C-alpha cells in the first residue's frame, strides 16, 4: 500500500459486544455493523457464568443480524488446552455450521485448523494474539490468511497509522470500554494469583477467586488470598481486577500499576478514520444489554458524523452517556495519546 495515499474516509465497521441474545439484538437495533459473541465454554476470553451463547442462540443471533444486513463474529480467542484440543476444533466447526461471518482467533494452532478445514471461513486475528507490529500482522496474514487484525491497546496513534500503512490486513482498534493495562495475550498476573488466566481459561481475576471481607481496617478485596485493595468507608467498590488494585511501593500506597479507568477514543475518531482504520471495537461482552444499546447508539452517531460531516465534534450528550458506563467514572485516551509519554 502506498504510504502517501490520500487519507481514507471509509466508514469503519462498528463492532459491538454481545454476551447474550438480548444484547445482540439491542446492539443490532442500535446500529452495530457487526456483533461479536462467544460460546458457553473456555474457548473465548469472557468465560463467565450466565454469559455467552449456545448453538440455538447463535443460530437465532445470526438470523437476526443477517436479516438486517449485519455480521456476526465469533470470538475463539483463548489458547488450546494441550490436554484436549476438542472444544476449540468443535467451536471452529460450529462457527462454520451456524453461519458466523468470521472467527476472531488468537492461537496459531486454531488459525491453522480453520485454514485447513474451513478455508472459506474468514479469520480475524484477536487482540489476544498480541500482534503489536505490522511484521507480526503480516506474518499471520501471509501464513494463515487473516483478513483483519485487532490491535492491542498499547500503540500510539502514530504507531497505529504506521501499522496500517505497512499491512494489507484490515485493522480494528478498540474505541471504548474497560482497559487492559498490559499487552493482551501476554499477561500471566491472573494465573500467578489464581491459577486461571485469559489465555488458559478465558478469565482474568476470576470471580470464584474473589473474596470481600469487612474488617476493622475497612472492606478488603482479596484475589486468591492476595489483598488487592482495602477501601475506606464510603469509597466505591470496584471489581478487584489484579492490576487495578492499590499496592505499596517504596512506602507509598497507591494504584501502583494503573487507576481504574475506561478507554474512550471519541475525541480521536477523525484521526482514526483518516488513518484508515477498518473497524472500531466496543469492549464489554460481560456488560448488560442496556450498556450495549446505549454505547452502540453513541458510537453509531459519532462514526456517522465523523465519516460524513466536514466538522466533527464530540457531543456533550455522548460524553455524558458514556460516562455513566465507564469503569471508575473516568475516561482516558489510553496509549493512543499517552500523556505519560
Amino acid at each position, binding site marked *: 500500500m502506498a504510504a502517501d495515499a490520500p487519507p481514507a474516509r471509509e466508514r469503519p465497521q462498528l463492532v459491538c459486544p454481545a454476551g447474550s441474545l438480548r444484547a445482540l439484538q439491542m446492539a443490532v437495533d442500535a446500529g452495530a455493523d457487526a456483533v461479536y459473541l462467544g460460546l458457553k465454554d473456555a474457548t473465548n476470553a469472557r468465560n463467565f457464568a450466565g454469559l455467552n451463547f449456545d448453538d440455538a442462540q447463535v443460530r437465532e443471533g445470526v438470523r437476526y443480524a443477517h436479516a438486517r444486513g449485519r455480521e456476526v463474529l465469533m470470538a475463539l480467542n483463548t489458547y488450546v488446552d494441550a490436554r484436549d484440543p476438542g472444544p476449540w476444533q468443535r467451536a471452529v466447526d460450529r462457527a462454520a455450521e451456524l453461519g458466523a461471518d468470521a472467527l476472531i482467533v*488468537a492461537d496459531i494452532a486454531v488459525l491453522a485448523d480453520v485454514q485447513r478445514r474451513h478455508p472459506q471461513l474468514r479469520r480475524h486475528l484477536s487482540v489476544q494474539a498480541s500482534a503489536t507490529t505490522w511484521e507480526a500482522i503480516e506474518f499471520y496474514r501471509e501464513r494463515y490468511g487473516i483478513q483483519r487484525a485487532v490491535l492491542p491497546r498499547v500503540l500510539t496513534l502514530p504507531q497505529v497509522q504506521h501499522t496500517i500503512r505497512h499491512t494489507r490486513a484490515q485493522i480494528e482498534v478498540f474505541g471504548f470500554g474497560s482497559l487492559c493495562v498490559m499487552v493482551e495475550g*501476554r499477561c500471566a498476573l491472573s494465573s500467578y*494469583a489464581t491459577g486461571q488466566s485469559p489465555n488458559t481459561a478465558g478469565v482474568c481475576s476470576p470471580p470464584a477467586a474473589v473474596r470481600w471481607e469487612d474488617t476493622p481496617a475497612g472492606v478488603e478485596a482479596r484475589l486468591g488470598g*492476595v*489483598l488487592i485493595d482495602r477501601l475506606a468507608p464510603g469509597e466505591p467498590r470496584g471489581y478487584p481486577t489484579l492490576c487495578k488494585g492499590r499496592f505499596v*511501593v517504596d512506602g507509598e500506597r497507591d494504584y501502583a500499576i494503573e487507576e481504574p479507568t475506561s478507554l474512550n477514543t471519541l475525541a480521536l475518531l477523525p484521526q482514526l478514520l483518516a488513518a484508515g482504520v477498518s473497524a472500531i471495537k466496543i469492549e464489554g461482552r460481560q456488560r448488560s444489554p442496556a450498556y450495549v444499546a446505549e454505547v452502540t447508539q453513541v458510537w453509531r452517531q459519532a462514526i456517522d458524523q465523523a465519516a460524513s460531516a466536514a466538522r466533527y465534534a464530540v457531543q456533550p450528550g455522548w460524553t455524558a452517556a458514556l460516562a455513566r458506563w465507564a469503569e471508575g467514572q473516568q475516561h482516558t485516551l489510553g496509549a493512543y495519546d499517552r500523556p*505519560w509519554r
Partner: protein
Amino acid sequence: MPSPRPFGLTVGPLPYWWPRAATIAFYADVADGPADTVVLGETVCSRRHEFKLADWLAMAVELASAGKQVVLATQALVTSEAELRTLRQVCEQDHFAVEAGDASALAVLGRAQAARRGRPPFVVGPHINVYSRAALEEVAPLGAATWVPPLELPLDAVARVNPPADRVRGPAGPVVTEAFAFGRMPLAFSARCFTARHHRLKKDECDFRCRDDADGLLLLTTEGRPFLVLNGIQTQSAALHCLIGARPALQAAGVTRLRLSPCSRGFTRVLALFDGVFNGDAAADAALAELQSLGLPGALVDGFARRRAGMQTLSA
C-alpha cells in the same frame, strides 16, 4: 554442540538494567561457571542504552570464545519501527542463534531461514504463545530447535506438547524443551513504564530510574506481603520460581534444558547448586536449603509447574 550432561543449563536474558561494570562482572562469572548456554540482549526496554546491540555482540563473541553457546534475544514487546530495525539486525545476523520474543521475530526469522539454509536454528521464547502441540508444530518448521514454554504452562501440559518419546521436529531435528527453572518470573508487559510512573516521570524522560533497582522495584500488598516487581514496562513476580526439587517431573515432561534467570546476589552459587542436583549427585533438599540461605530477593515458589497459582510456595 550437544551437552553430554543430562540437563543443559541456560542463563536467561538479564531482565534488569545494571551498570555497565556490574553487567560485565556478571558475565565474567557466567563465563567461568557451569552454564553451557547464555541468552544475551535487551528484552525489556529499548531506552536502556548502557549496553547497545554492538556491546551485546561483543559480549557474545567473548562468551563464545569461553566455550559458551550464545543466543541473542529479541525484545518481547515491540511497538515502534526503530525497535523493529533492531529486531531485524538481531534476526538477520548469522553468527549466533536467536531467541524470538514475539511474532515479529518469527516473521523475520522465518524469512531469513528460508533465504539461507544452514543458519543457526532459533529458540521459541517464553513470550511466544505456544500452549499446545499443534501450535509448536506450526512454529518449529520455521527453523526452531528449542522451545521455552510460557511461564504459566504446567509441566503436565509441557509433556503433552513435546513428549520425550515423540518430539515435535524442526528442520534441525527434534525440538528441545527448555523450562524456566529459576528466578523472578516475567508475568506481563505494558506500553507504560511503571517504574517511571512510580517516580512520577514520563516514559521518554524517565531518568533511567530502573537502574536504581538491581532486582526490580518491589510491590507489596497493603498488608506488607511482597507480591510483584515493577521492572520498567515489565511486571515480574516478587517470588522466584524454583524447580530445583522437580528433577523427576522435569525429566518425565521431556525437559532437557533449564533456564535460570539472573538476580543480583548469589547467582553464581545458584548455577552451581542446579548443576550439582541436575548433572551431579547432589541432594535436592540440601541444595534447596542452601538456596534459601543465600539472601535471594524473594521467596521460592513453583505453583505454575503444578497447575496451581504461580505464587504457591514449593511443594513439600
